[in-house]
């Protein structure tokens, strides 16, 4: 999964963090890709996304809403997403420190998704966008350059947490699996970005809540998380 950008949107829909990563193999450092938007466009993107998120939770079909208790909102744990696998790295390498999170990974168990009926994934023929929302209203967005196979020959599909494609093209079960897997890995990744956020942004007394994040440390940690994905 090649992550092109990470965005963080606050409770009111304002963009508080944006970072793009160049996916091309020749230049793996975090330079802006050729499709980068200017900052104004990004703000518009963030607030549009926020509103679409809200709207999508309203258009969830009634049938799904009523059968909620049967849905499983667990996100399985995918080991070492964005983090060096200690079994694979050389024996005498220094163990990585993940801020205040002891151990070789930020967390190691499946976890609950707080995003029950909001937008989780947006796939197009150019990119796939994943959204992870926290209980405090913060949205972590990852834009990935991997393109999932489409259900029809054209454009945009949207789906909510139940993994049911709204177009209801049931012959593509394998696609559904792919969609789910991508979404789960993205959730694992974005929860780790949340962990980094809680370490480097929350513990900084200079940071004002809901304001843009300007921390170099946070930047570096997110970058190393993304770098480890490749």
């Amino acid at each position, binding site marked *: 999964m090649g992550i092109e950008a990470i965005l963080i949107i606050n409770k009111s829909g304002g963009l508080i963090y944006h970072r793009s990563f160049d996916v091309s193999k020749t230049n793996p450092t975090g330079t802006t890709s050729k499709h980068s938007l200017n900052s104004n466009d990004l703000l518009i993107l963030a607030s549009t996304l926020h509103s679409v998120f809200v709207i999508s939770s309203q258009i969830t079909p009634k049938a799904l809403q009523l059968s909620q208790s049967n849905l499983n909102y667990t996100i399985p744990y995918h080991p070492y997403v964005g983090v060096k696998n200690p079994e694979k790295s050389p024996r005498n390498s220094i163990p990585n420190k993940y801020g205040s999170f002891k151990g070789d990974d930020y967390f190691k168990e499946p976890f609950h998704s707080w995003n029950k009926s909001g937008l989780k994934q947006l796939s197009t023929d150019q990119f796939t966008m994943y959204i992870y929302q926290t209980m405090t209203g913060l949205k972590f967005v990852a834009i990935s350059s991997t393109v999932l196979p489409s259900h029809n020959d054209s454009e945009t599909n949207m789906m909510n947490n139940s993994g049911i494609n709204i177009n209801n093209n049931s012959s593509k079960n394998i696609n559904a699996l792919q969609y789910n897997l991508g979404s789960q890995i993205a959730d694992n990744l974005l929860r780790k970005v949340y962990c980094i956020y809680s*370490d*480097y942004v929350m513990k*900084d*007394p*200079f940071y*004002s809540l809901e304001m843009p994040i*300007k921390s*170099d440390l946070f930047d570096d940690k997110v970058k190393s998380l993304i770098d480890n994905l490749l």
Partner: protein
Amino acid sequence: MPHQQRYNNGSMTNNEAIERQRQYEMFQESLPKVNKILFQMILNEIIPLSVRIENQLTQGNEFQNDTKLDTLGDSSFDKASDLDNITKLKDLSINAKANSETHLGNISSPDDVLIYKLSQSVDENENKYNNILKRIRDIGIKIGTKLVNLLIFTNNINLNFKEMDLLLIMKFICRDVWKHVFGKQIDNLKTNHRGTFYLTDLEYPLLQSFCIETNTIPSQLNEEFILNKESKLVEPFLELPVGIIKGVLLSLGYPLDEVICLATFIDKPKERIKNSFPKGISFHVQITKSFLPQQQKQ
């Protein structure tokens, strides 16, 4: 600096020393603990708290009756800055008791507003600024003195307070005090053996999560200015370890007015800059000469 051999008075064999060291470590493990994050957050909260206290004290003098106070801080911080407009957060309703009583006022200002205002007030109201720094230092001094009491009674065989001269005391600060409070030792200690010491901490733990804006400052401003601005913001936070050092020295026999302690930023070697606060801290400690000769009678 090998842990065991430091203050060995020579009367114990090496095996005994190792055994007692192990017992000491087991004892330390068995003591009740709390979450380190909480501890560090409280230490860093001391700085905004000091600002809040100062605001309330001076406000109390200026206003005789309990009128509604300015929600963004002391009204004498009048300089309107962009920050004021951006960081006007919603009012925090604070309940002083269980049967709710909201109290508005500068007590409700969030921390970041207080810290930014503090750094702005350096020029305007030097007296107030110094008061706040002094308060932070005082808290540090109290922590330092009490800390020595705690450490004396931990039964650490390596500490032999009776025979400590100034150099050993400074080493005690660098190793034990720093290790206990901040989780790491001081990186470097230099002395001229005449009462002046330089303690260098390249990664002072309480600052590691701090970030200073670097990418929004217009490029016309030269680096000097930016560095100055950043340093001013972080300066108050350095008063705490300064106070701790002075407090430790105080309780080991060096009165406050005989000790000068200053903290400054220093550059770090390039390899260590990544993933941490870009500057290290150097503490310059000086014991005034008049006090030294008395300590050398042993």
